Structures are given as C-alpha cells and as structure tokens.
C-alpha cells in the first residue's frame, strides 16, 4: 500500500458541550490513495465538516480527539506540531470552501491575494504574478493578466469559485479538499466546476477529497465514495458499487430520495422518515435503526461493524452478515 496518501484510522472526535460530550465522529476509517478522487456523501449533521477540520486540525477549542489517527504520508497529523501543520496547510493539503462569495478578501485584488499565498516561494514578484496568471488561465478565466488587477466583487460566483480552485492548486498540493464547492452555484456552473476539477486532477495528479450532498455530482466525479450518517461511516466503496450494488439501507434510501433518480413525474417523492439521533445522547445498537425499514432485533443491541464485503467495499449493517468475506 505504498500509494496511500491519507489514512483515517478509527478516528473518534467529540465536542465538549454543556449537555455532555457530543460524539461528532465515531470510529471513522477510510483511505485516500494518491491521485484518487474520493467523495464523502451524507446529510446535514453527519460529521463531514468535523472530519475536514480534523484533517486540517482547524477545529473548535471544545474539540477532543478521543481515539484513532489521521495519517498523511504515514505521519499522524494529530500528533504533529502546530508548526508542521502550518507547513502542510496550503502547501501539501489545500482546501476549497463552500461559499465562493466569502472565500476572498474583498479589499485586496485577486492578484495580491494570489501573491500572498505564495509567501513560501523564493521567486521574484514578477514570476509569482506570472504563475498566478497561468493558474487563472488553467481554470478558464479569460484575459488572466488583466483580471489579476481586479477585486473579488468584479467576478461572478462561478468565476470566484474557479479562482478559489486556482489558488488551492497553486502550490501543487498532494491533497485537495473540496467542501461542497458547487452547492452555492447553479447547474451549468456546477458542471463547469466538476469538469474543471477533473481536468486539473489529470494535470496535477493531486488526490481530491470531495464533500457533497449532491449525489449526481458524486456519481459523475468520484472514483470511490464514503457514505456517512450521524458521525459514522455506514458504507464505502467504488462509485459503481455504491450506486448499483449498495449494501446499506441508508445509502439505498438516499439514492432513492434523489429526485434526479426518478424520471417519471412522481406525485409523492420518497423521503427518509424520522430524525437523525441526538449525538450527545446516542441510542445503543445501529445508529440508523430507528429510520430503517429492515431493522431486526439485533440492530437495537449491537453496533454493526464496518465489514469488508468484498475487496474495497465496506458496509456497517447486520443484514450483510452472511456475506462477510473476512
């Protein structure tokens, strides 16, 4: 496994709150290989954001890492010094945030901001600007030299998000984290961003951890998918396995609920009744059982382990228990 870039190994993270510990992430395990695009899907409150901020160690002060490791190129980031983390952030690991309207500093030109993030480089200012212009060109911004002199408000939302991607890729990171980068954009721009990311990934060979709740985007962009629910990984596997041969009821329900999946006009759209459980007061057994229409007696008492069902396909559900190969 020499090509593993990022390993999340049995990671558990709590938030200390007045109501007790909120168990935001529990026993999260998955890998990202070099040059691979891995999608993380899940609904609000599933722990996607906690996971990203944990990888970058940009967590709130009440965060407690209870267990597990986050290994980047073999080194545990949870043990790394703050100085080392600063060297990694923006250089080896960079991030594109959700809201392109708030990513940039409104009072500095795009050129100035792109210069600032090259502070580690020993190149001349002219070379840095030329590099910035080249990156803007690479994300499809026409007339990049002139555009460097402009301020964020002079760009549309789609352009700002592409600029954010250009900035994230300037240092040629090994890992790009994209946190719902298309959620704030409309469909045509969303497609532009996805296609641009695919092209850039081929060009720069960086791995991408792509967080989204839009299944269509995940299906189109990702090699592998990790499905999260209420702070736990419920299923992970190759994109085709997840969409065509899903082994967890939550994944199946999630795909069914996507109106893009339903071609004929439906009078009643499928939903997942019930609410996500309170993470400060977790019920025993399977986290999804209250909303699962296939729940059995065992689901109420024992937490299903994330079993390997076949090479690269894992699911945490008692229904699969005869199929386990390991």
């Amino acid at each position, binding site marked *: 496994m020499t090509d593993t870039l990022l390993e999340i190994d049995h990671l558990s993270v709590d938030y200390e709150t007045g109501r007790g510990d909120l168990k935001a992430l529990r026993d999260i395990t998955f890998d990202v290989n070099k040059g691979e695009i891995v999608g993380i899907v899940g*609904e609000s409150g599933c722990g996607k954001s906690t996971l990203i901020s944990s990888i970058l160690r940009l967590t709130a002060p009440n965060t407690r890492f209870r267990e597990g490791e986050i290994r980047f190129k073999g080194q545990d980031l949870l043990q790394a010094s703050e100085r080392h983390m600063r060297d990694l952030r923006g250089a080896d690991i960079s991030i594109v945030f959700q809201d392109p309207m708030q990513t940039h500093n409104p009072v500095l030109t795009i050129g100035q901001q792109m210069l600032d993030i090259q502070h580690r480089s020993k190149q001349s200012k002219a070379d840095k600007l030329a590099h910035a212009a080249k990156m803007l060109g690479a994300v499809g911004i026409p007339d990049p030299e002139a555009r460097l002199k402009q301020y964020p408000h002079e760009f549309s939302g789609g352009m700002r998000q592409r600029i954010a991607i250009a900035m994230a890729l300037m240092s040629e990171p090994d890992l790009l984290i994209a946190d719902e980068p298309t959620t704030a954009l409309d469909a045509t721009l969303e*497609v532009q961003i996805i296609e641009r990311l695919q092209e850039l990934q081929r060009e720069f060979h960086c791995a991408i951890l792509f967080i989204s709740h839009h299944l*269509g985007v995940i*299906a*189109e962009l990702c090699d592998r998918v990790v499905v999260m629910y209420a702070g736990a990984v419920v299923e992970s596997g190759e994109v085709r396995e997840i969409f065509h041969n899903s082994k967890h009821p939550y994944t199946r329900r999630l795909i069914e609920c996507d109106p893009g*999946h*339903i071609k004929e006009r439906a009078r009643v*759209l499928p*939903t997942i009744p019930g609410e996500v459980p309170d993470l400060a007061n977790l019920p025993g057994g399977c986290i999804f059982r209250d909303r699962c229409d296939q729940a059995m007696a065992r689901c109420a008492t024992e937490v299903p382990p994330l079993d390997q069902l076949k090479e690269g396909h894992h699911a945490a559900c008692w229904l699969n228990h005869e199929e386990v190969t390991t």
Partner: protein
Amino acid sequence: MSLLNVVDLKTSYGPVNVLAGVSFTVQPGETYALVGESGSGKTTVIRAISGLAPAQDGSVTFEGQEIRGAPERVMRPLRKDMAMMFQDPVGSLSPRLTIRSLITEPYRIQGMKDKDLDAEAMRLLEMVNLPTHFADRYPYQLSGGQARRVGVARALALEPKLILADEPTAGLDVSVQGELLNLLNDLRERLGLAMVIITHNLSVVRHVADRMGIMYLGRLVEEGTTETIFRDPRHPYTRCLLSANPEPDPDARLERIALKGEPPSLLKRPSGCEFRERCPFAKDICTQTPEWEVDGGHGLRCLAPLS
C-alpha cells in the same frame, strides 16, 4: 380568468435593465416554474409581482386587478391571497420572535383580531409536520429544514391563492427536500393553491411544475408544459441547461452540451440574439433579433431552434 397575468414586465436599476419584458400567466391551482442561471432575473420577477421590487413598465394583474406599482394600501390586503416564501429560510425569520409569533404575524398584519392565534399556531405547525412545542422556540433553535417549514406555515397561514416561492428547497438535504415538496404538492391539492416556483434544480421542476419558463438575461427564451420542455427542448439554452443536470448514476451517458463563457453583462447586452455568443448552435441568422413566437402553447425566442 387566469389568476396571475404578467405582461411585458420591465425592471431596471439605473442603467441595468434586469427584466427586459417578461410575460406569463398562471391559472388557479397551477404550478409554474421559472428556471435559469444566477442573474437571469428570476427573483426580480417574483419580487416585482409582489411589489417588493420596482417595475417601471408592463402589467401585473392578479384576479383581474392591476397591481404593478400599486401603493402599499392596495397591496397589503392582496398579500393575504398572494404569499411569499423567501430564499433564505433562517434569514427571513426575525430572530427575536418566537415561532408562535412568527407564524401568527400574518393575522396581526391583516388585522384579523377575532382569530384564536394560539389555536391557529397549533393548526399551522401540525399542517407542516412540526411538533407543537416548537411554538415557543426561536429561529436559531431550528435546522434549515425546520425553518423552511416555518416559512411554509407563514406563507399558508391566510390560505392564499398564490404562493411565490424563491428556491424553496435550496440547501436542503435530499430526504428533507422530498418532504417539503410532498407537503407543497399535498397542500396544493387540498387547498387548490397556485404556485410560482423558482429553482435551479431541474429534477425538482420535473416533479412539481405543470408548466415552466426558461429565463435568460431578464427575458423568457422558452416556455411550455414541463413534459414538453423535458421531452422536446427547442431553445439551445434550454438544451444546455437540461444537459447540465448531473444524474445520480456513474454510468449515465450524458450528452453534455457545454455553454461557452460567462453570461454577458446587463450593461452591454449583445446585439441580435442575446444568447448567440455562448450558443453552440449559433447560425448567421442569429445576428438578427428573435421574436417571441408561440406554437400550440410552446413559446420560443430563437431563430435557429433545435428539432
């Protein structure tokens, strides 16, 4: 008689003409969807209809009454029949009012003093499937989906004939999105509501809208029944939009038609067909200005339509 009749509606902010003449009608009980890119003027259309944005020219009639530019004293009683659902679910609720006050505010504004407001609050919460103890909560204690449902309750409080909904499902998880659309569909059948819905989620449009209009740079470029538009889009822009809808299937073979460039500036509208610089199917004739033509209920503004 149509419930809502919008004719050649025009809005400009100084030199920026955001709406360059929009016309459509909505029948009682009908759902009409407006789709298009960011900046195409969708939100301005519904804000102009409800009098929240200026409209310098054209006409808006609601149940036969002209309401464009009508003074607040005329609009206020009409808002009982014409409710808005705003885009930002939390931002549209005052943070200092309880949910009870928020959903009964319409009765107070309309001076309906004989109503039992507590009972109404309970009725509305039940209608949108929220627990009744939510009446004492404040907006910050709600999730996005719950705040959305409070928005629906507020919009429905006075049993309007028309709802103007701006991106009612934006930012919602797919399962919650389904719940909200089912709720709207159900209420529409029970109460005979008509709706104008703005969304850029085409999958949503397919399930809720009877008819749809596609906007580009403040104009409709195509209009028809949802079924016709999805089956037989004639305008290249519509075709591009429909092809840009990622499907939740990794093996979906998409014949994607890429849009070139960015939407042009409203300060420098292109000559001829305003879409021609980005149109993958543009022909020489497109330097002329296309007129709006209607054929069997299918409206189109294109000189080189696709077949």
